[in-house]
């Protein structure tokens, strides 16, 4: 056991699944039933027929636990492919967030200035609120929300991470 180590690492895992009833419940049930962490999880159909969905799950654990998570996912009957993007090399991770900021006066101006710096877009505005849309790594969204908090952050909705490997290699 000792050589396997107790060091924790994060893993971004992409799972291609048959898009059938209950498949998401199977994946989530596996994580809760076996006591694994889910930091975020996203799912949507990704092929032209709508038969295949891609689940991106961000988790963490010891190397042995992450190997176990991948093996457990892979043995689910509707799972086509499991890929540990973190382990397999350079990859992009993006998350979409909608961020509502409420305020008047100088705070509104400051909110717009910060949004500009973070390349967040205004997608809704009233005289006392903005909704910003931004994409980026989770840390960038975290940082943006932290800056907005003192100037009127009212509500945040985030998708969780989606990820893809860099380069020509595809996952299928």
């Amino acid at each position, binding site marked *: 056991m000792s050589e396997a180590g107790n060091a924790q690492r994060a893993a971004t895992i992409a799972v291609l699944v048959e898009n059938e009833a209950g498949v998401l419940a199977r994946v989530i049930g596996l994580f809760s039933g076996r006591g694994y962490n889910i930091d975020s999880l996203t799912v949507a159909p990704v092929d032209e027929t709508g038969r295949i969905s891609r689940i991106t799950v961000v988790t963490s654990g010891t190397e042995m636990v992450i*190997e*176990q998570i991948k093996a457990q996912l892979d*043995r689910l*009957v509707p799972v086509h492919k499991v890929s540990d993007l973190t382990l397999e090399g350079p990859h992009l991770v993006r998350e979409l967030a909608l961020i509502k900021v409420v305020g008047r006066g100088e705070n509104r101006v400051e909110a717009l200035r910060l949004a500009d710096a973070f390349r967040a877009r205004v997608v809704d505005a009233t005289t006392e609120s903005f909704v910003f849309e931004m994409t980026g790594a989770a840390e960038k969204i975290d940082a943006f929300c932290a800056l907005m908090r003192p100037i009127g952050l009212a509500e945040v909705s985030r998708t969780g991470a989606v990820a893809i490997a860099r380069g020509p290699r595809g996952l299928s």
Partner: protein
Amino acid sequence: MSAATKPASTEAALTMSGAEVVLRALKDNGVEVIFGYPGGAVLPIYDALFQQNAIRHILVRHEQAAVHAAEGYARSTGKVGCVLVTSGPGATNAVTGLVDALMDSIPVVCLTGQVPTHLIGNDAFQEADTTGITRPATKHNYLVKKSGDLARVVHEAFYVAKSGRPGPVVIDLPKDILINKAPYTEPPIAAHRSYRPQTEPDAEQIRKAVRLLKAAKRPIVYAGGGVINAGPEASRLLTEFVRMTGFPCTNTLMGLGAFPSEDPHFVGMLGMHGTYEANLAMHGCDVMLNIGARFDDRVTGRLNAFAPNSKKIHADIDPSSINKNVPVDVAIVGDAGRVLAALIECWKAEDAPQDKHVLTAWWRQIDEWRAKDCLRYRQSGKIIKPQHAVKRLYEITKELGRETFITTEVGQHQMWAAQYFGFQKPNRWMTSGGLGTMGYGLPAAMGVQIAHPDALVIDIAGEASILMNIQEMGTLAQYRLPVKVFILNNEYMGMVRQWQELLHGGRYSESYSAALPDFVKLAESFHAKGIRVTDADDLDAGIREMIAYPGPVIADIAVAKDENCFPMIPSGAAHNEMILGEDQEGGVAGVTDEGKVLV
């Protein structure tokens, strides 16, 4: 999939009801027997069953028993067991059996009725979210919502249940789907879209394994239920491999029979109640070959002290079993039979000589451990020792030479059966290993007897466990199944009592079997024969009378009440810290607080 399935001619296809399609699909998947219990939601299937002769239905008395019977059928034949229960309570009663089959990797297909599709989600009468409830209780499950999917789903369920690491599969069938006309398609030939288990081992890993094994000074083969699941040929290959290499071999509880117990290479079962020699050989080995076992906590004891100086090779058909509890040096994914065949071939092809001299030294060490005779007990006086009862049962059945199948319930009697009953062939031993389900043995024995009508089928039971599915005596009577129930009656939930003695200061909280029935009268009221034996001198006669009787029998054997099951690795201890019986030196060691939290 569509390219691979040949639709039957379209007009013919739509003359069948969903229920008829289900039965046809079962038949085309080789089902001859189905264990079940009717109810409102499955009435269409029962109506279709009534009008055909291809599939025999066995009416159980409780849905849990239907699943255990299907497990007994599956484990003794290598086929898929089949179950039919109704919606709601029918399905929830089956859950224990399903989890049992999941833990022990037994192929079972369980059809559950469901309320009609338009009522799903309305809290209708006898509605339960069966796919939701059974999702973690099965290898896979299905809810059929379209008649067009019905035949494909049944075919797929059989494929999933029996391929790769076998397991239970549930098909939830809404009543309207069973009544409406549905098309029939033949079983598919093409591969499943996503589920394709690897059965053929990687040649490089096999070579690595053989190199380690050839250089081993203190090797051991540790074989489990995966060898049994891979079919009788795998057991034959295991025996060939062990004899060819001269290695010692131990079996898990699930693996008993995979290697003949009377072969001198066999060092007995390993684990919590395994033999001294098997556990010390595991602890002291330098190369371990695990085939089809999963480093279960009953087997490993304290993980950080498990076989500390060994290289480990693990062959398993389920990649998630590898490196789960114990990190290994060589991982081989594949079917146990294919792995063994490849190992034998590679062993013969590798030039490296085997050092027989060091192996002799290892055997000398093992023989020293064997000389402890860890299963020794003293039978004296009139009180029957439970170990003696099992040993005599084994010896008498051996002398009679009949094809014999043993099932058990769960507890001390189960461990004594594993220790004192020898198995020379696979598929003769059915016990609830992973889940430890009391009440397993009697229904499992029913399933075995259905599959092997002329064989001697004995459920070695405890007086507490047997009461958990005692209603199945009715099934034995109805189908004239000559199952023998051999109760080791110590008037305690013996294993609970043993743990209370060893770990909880002898406070026997709620473990006494109070108000027991008169098992002789109970047998008679179920049209069976009852025998009670209380004197050691009458034991053999009682066993012979039980076996000779042509119908079902309950033999109630009064045994020593306070006998403990030894040897034992206390929870949280290592293999080399095992405790032997009271008759042996060492006595009963204390258990640490850390060990106490373990089950």
